[in-house]
């Protein structure tokens, strides 16, 4: 793996005295390959390798007994710092209704994550309400209804209304009934679908959420960052949730998204069941991405 590769690169240049730019460049090419294989966006990879090359040249790699390990540490630390750099706690209030909206591409895991979030915050003492604002996908409301029933968490929906109407009425219901948290599910949509993005923008404007999460799939490829950018531009995201991290995808899209839109990655989805939600740890993600 990566550490061993770097050890062998640096071993053969030990005898030459000073580690040169070329040596760092060669090791950096291996980092580039690892990041691309992990699906980090190519533009982000280029910027990252340039930044880290400069840092590596400055670091005391030659004086280390194991320059390969030292090099990996520089790379790994930079990666973890990049991903954890925007970390902050979820901002919920204790004396009023808190509102969360989940948005993202089709199939990324929003509906399942809504149920997970509701369960997670109920365990912390919240009284959550799920609001089913996806009137677009076949049987979406059935899906959230079933999840809510299995967790004994109420679901607000209305098959006859528009997403915006359901959102407004659902939040009014939440206020009246004294819920402390409303988790709003939205339809999967393309960032290039003007009508659907306008619908989402109107929904978020009406809901005025405390947290707006972009739900992204851990197996997403090079285009993920472009999608996130567009959603961020339209509805101002406050955080990211990366799903299906129980798979064997390296999850490099997470690095690209965090680097480019600068909001924190708050949770990762680690299973299909409602308890499959974990907090995000940048160091663990860094070693996963580096492979």
């Amino acid at each position: 793996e990566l550490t061993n590769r770097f050890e062998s690169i640096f071993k053969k240049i030990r005898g030459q005295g000073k580690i040169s730019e070329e040596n760092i460049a060669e090791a950096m090419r291996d980092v580039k390959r690892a990041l691309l294989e992990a699906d980090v966006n190519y533009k982000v990879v280029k910027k990252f390798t340039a930044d880290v090359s400069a840092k590596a040249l400055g670091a005391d790699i030659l004086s280390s007994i194991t320059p390969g390990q030292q090099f990996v540490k520089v790379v790994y630390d930079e990666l973890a710092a990049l991903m954890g750099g925007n970390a902050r706690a979820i901002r919920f209030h204790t004396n009023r209704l808190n509102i969360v909206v989940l948005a993202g591409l089709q199939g990324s895991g929003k509906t399942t994550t809504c149920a997970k979030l509701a369960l997670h915050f109920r365990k912390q003492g919240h009284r959550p309400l799920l609001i089913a604002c996806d009137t677009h996908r076949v049987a979406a409301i059935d899906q959230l209804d079933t999840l809510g029933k299995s967790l004994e968490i109420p679901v607000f929906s209305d098959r006859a209304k528009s997403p915006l109407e359901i959102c407004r009425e659902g939040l009014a219901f939440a206020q009246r009934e004294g819920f402390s948290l409303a988790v709003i599910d939205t339809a999967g949509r393309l960032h290039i679908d003007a009508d659907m993005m306008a619908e989402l923008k109107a929904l978020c404007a009406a809901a005025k959420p405390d947290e707006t999460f972009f739900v992204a799939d851990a197996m997403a490829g090079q285009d993920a960052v472009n999608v996130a950018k567009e959603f961020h531009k339209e509805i101002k995201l406050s955080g990211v949730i990366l799903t299906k991290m129980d798979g064997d995808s390296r999850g490099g899209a997470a690095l690209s998204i965090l680097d480019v839109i600068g909001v924190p990655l708050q949770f990762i989805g680690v299973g299909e069941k409602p308890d499959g939600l974990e907090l995000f740890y940048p160091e663990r993600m860094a070693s996963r991405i580096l492979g």
Partner: protein
Amino acid sequence: SGASGSFDDRFYDALEDALILADIGLETSTDLIARLKSEIAGRGITTPAAAYAALKTLLAGDLAVTKLPDEFPPKPWVILVVGVNGVGKTTTIGKLAGEFGAAGKKVMLGAADTFRAGAVEQLKIWAQRTKADFVFQQDGADPASVAFDAMEASKARGIDVLILDTAGRLQNKTNLMNELSKIVRVIKRNLPQAPNEVLLVVDATTGQNALNQARVFNEIIGVTGFVITKLDGTSKGGIAVALSKNFGIPVRKIGVGEGVDDLQNFDPVSYVDALLG
């Protein structure tokens, strides 16, 4: 400009960038650029336009294609649809049901995703929309048992095409892959030539993990075709190139939207045109 025709490193770097950004993958992209260089040298190509055309020809050549057969001598023709979570299996089945129905075939859909909330309801609505027959059991039932029931019902009712939906499953989940093996065993025992088609549905937004998905699903149950979905988005779906090249399995169909008509036959030439722009 250099010795290898009239193209310098910057030209090839820009091409490699475009391929990588399209999710073709570092290894496949590097290999394509190497093959392009020998095409250019061997054929004395001197203009960028001709170089692009040569690259497109290489790409299209790598993308094997056979569309689904129009005749189904064995009745029922059994199509098993598999893949990881959320890629578009159930929706693709709905679209296929629409297509076969429009061609005058008697279609049945088998709801062998007995796990996910709302999965049976979702497929039931697609069956209603496309006037397909529908077989299901209670939630949590053994999916192999649903597959068996669906096959028996298909034989009894003279169904032309039976399409079986399965639950999304990540390829590294051994117990779920074992469950899928069992479904296939039960299908084979019921009808030795079935499943006639095993479609692995892959999301166009997927990165290099698609190769792992294909490898594991193919190793465990044998895949006969890919369906690449969500090509109406901005992902170029370049993984299709790596998939075709590494597995020699054809891309059967592509999904280009959420509606019943949003399924197209895979055409390598227009696909490559869209890929490289």
